[in-house]
């Protein structure tokens, strides 16, 4: 029962189309009912530079579209970071959180909430916390093994991540149970409910800067998954490449987590879906993962804002949808590996 592998190019065309179509569909769905044609008309008018500023436009351009674009960014960034890390660490169970970036961002953000900071500063705290934790992990592993052993890196990530997790718990205990604790809880579960167009604009460049080196260096990152010695034999400066990959993945993850809160599963699962579609080669897997991540997050966030009367936290949904999907994938890929 072996199937002919899908032509990679056609896979990319299908995925790109899927992302665009899903964005359009998501734009027509929401608790504030806007007929699809009205949505298309308003979009066309806005592109042409005309159109009013009624309730429809407010909902569409101030609330719904920023969220959809943010979902694309979040999904793409987390999936790219996850794919890069899985290749870098040569381990399919690795997610972008392995070096503690999400936990660090979470700690930064909850401290911001505890101190009663403005939303913008809370986001900056989250971003800074994510970067700071990974920097600490890198420094620690350097101090322990100057050669930059991957196992030491992972262990340092676990230790520093646990410390940051303890910090989050402490902040929770100190927080005001009526107004800060719910905000902290929701932040740690992830949500795009409050995303503004301005947030998307400030996140986009950071994600681009983070993902760009991963895309540009995709060949070498792919070689890295063969093993350090093999990569070195092929003339790749392993240690430097590793730092670049970690820096790029961390920047992308920290900047999206700053606006979305902590969202699990996407970075772990999506690279596997990509592998299933285009095979294990990283140079193909990375763009596929970016597209699948974007599509997946559009679907999840649309569910989050429409499935129930209240917002469902994204972290809850990605786990509910992602868990069974991952098991299904594992079952399927096993059949492929051992027919």
């Amino acid at each position, binding site marked *: 029962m072996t199937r002919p592998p899908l032509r990679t190019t056609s896979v990319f065309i299908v995925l790109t189309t899927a992302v665009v179509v899903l964005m359009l569909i998501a734009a027509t769905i929401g608790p504030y009912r806007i007929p699809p044609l009205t949505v298309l008309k308003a979009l066309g008018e806005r592109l042409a530079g005309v159109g009013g500023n009624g309730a429809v436009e407010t909902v569409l351009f101030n609330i719904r579209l920023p969220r959809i674009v943010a979902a694309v960014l979040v999904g793409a960034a987390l999936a790219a970071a996850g794919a890069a890390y899985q290749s870098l660490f040569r381990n399919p169970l690795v997610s972008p959180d392995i070096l503690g970036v999400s936990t660090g961002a979470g700690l930064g953000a909850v401290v911001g909430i505890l101190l*009663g900071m*403005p939303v913008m500063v809370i986001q900056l705290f989250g971003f800074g916390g994510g970067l700071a934790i990974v920097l600490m992990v890198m420094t620690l592993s350097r101090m322990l093994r100057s050669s930059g052993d991957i196992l030491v890196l992972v262990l340092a990530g676990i230790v520093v991540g646990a410390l940051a997790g303890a910090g989050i718990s402490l902040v929770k205990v100190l927080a005001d149970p*009526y*107004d800060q604790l*719910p*905000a902290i809880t*929701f*932040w740690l579960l992830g949500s795009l409910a409050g995303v503004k167009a301005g947030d998307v604009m400030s996140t986009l460049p950071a994600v681009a800067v983070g993902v760009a080196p991963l895309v540009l260096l995709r060949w070498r990152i792919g070689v890295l998954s063969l093993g350090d010695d093999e990569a070195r034999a092929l003339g790749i400066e392993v240690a430097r490449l590793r730092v670049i990959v970690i820096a790029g993945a961390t920047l992308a993850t920290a900047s999206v987590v700053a606006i979305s*809160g902590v969202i699990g599963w996407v970075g772990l699962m999506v690279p596997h879906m990509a592998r299933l579609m285009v095979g294990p080669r990283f140079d193909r897997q990375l763009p596929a993962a970016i597209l699948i991540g974007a599509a997946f997050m559009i679907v999840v966030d649309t569910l989050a804002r429409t499935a129930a009367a209240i917002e469902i936290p994204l972290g809850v949904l990605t786990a509910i949808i992602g868990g069974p999907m991952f098991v299904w994938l594992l079952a399927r890929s096993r059949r492929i590996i051992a027919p």
Partner: protein
Amino acid sequence: MGTQNLPRRALGRLLLAAGLLLALAGTVTARTVVDSAGRSVEVPDTITRVFAAGPPASTMLYVLAPEKMIGWVRAPRAPEKPYLLPATRDLPELGRLSGRGDTLNLERLIAAKPDLVIDFGTINDTYRSLADRVHQQTGIPYLLIDGRFANTPAAFRLLADILGVKERGEALAKATEAIFAEVDRVRAAVPDDKRPKVYLARGPEGLESGSRGSINTEIIERVGGINVVTGLREKGGIVNVSPEQLLTWRPDIVVTMEPRFAAMVAGKPIWATVPAIETGRVYLAPTLPFGFIDGPPSVNRLVGLIWLLHAFYPDEVKADLRDEVRGFYRLFYQVDLDDDALAQLLAPRKP
């Protein structure tokens, strides 16, 4: 007929056009108000639909102007409904705007078409920026009202002025001031060494509490009760308490909101030597339709003050608790409690 109709029709059109103009240019009929955070916000002249951002604001709005509510943060449950105005009992649950983790979808907020969003509680930069963001994103004015307990009369007056219910606001503010004055009178009459040591038992085992200075125990401390929980934290919310600490604190009175705990506590060995249990001074705080002690920490705590005065200082307070509670419910919640409802409300109270 035709000649007579013409000018009338023209007048009608003119009025229609004027109305449309007014409706379109909301700014024409708007006025600027300043909220407790010092933010100048433009609001419509007549406000008929108000959205409350969180549970304290929801209670505040219910008390001040229930006719302007468009929904609840958390819909009333069946036992709570008889204690609320019939018109508000079945309003929808809309969720809360609580910062990053909104359970309320902004589209739903726009679809509910409120004239105004109010929040009642802490004022800090997080809430300032959140209010500004939601205002910018949705175009709906968003006001922050200072929710500190001592500020309650001022909050009633400020919000009543904004909502156009000045008389009701004044009546509520006066009643609040009268309750505060009675609390101060009793406190002044009771010497410091006669003040009870009080423990607020929360959680199923009663081993969670609010440490001194927390919003959970604010009204216990306001009526002069000495909150025994100290030293665990400078200021703030819920803390876990070990039974050993409890035995060293030796509270004279235990206040709780957990019916199960109140019923079981007398039989629990670790509680047996606590003075409050020995003397039977365990008080179960009523929770209908809103909590007496907190939950939410809003204007509902005013009746809690009255109730605590009776519980703490039975010799000092002359008025009848039932009359006072009935009066409070009539003025603040606009419901008349019959004897059954009153008994049901206060029944769990242990002698």
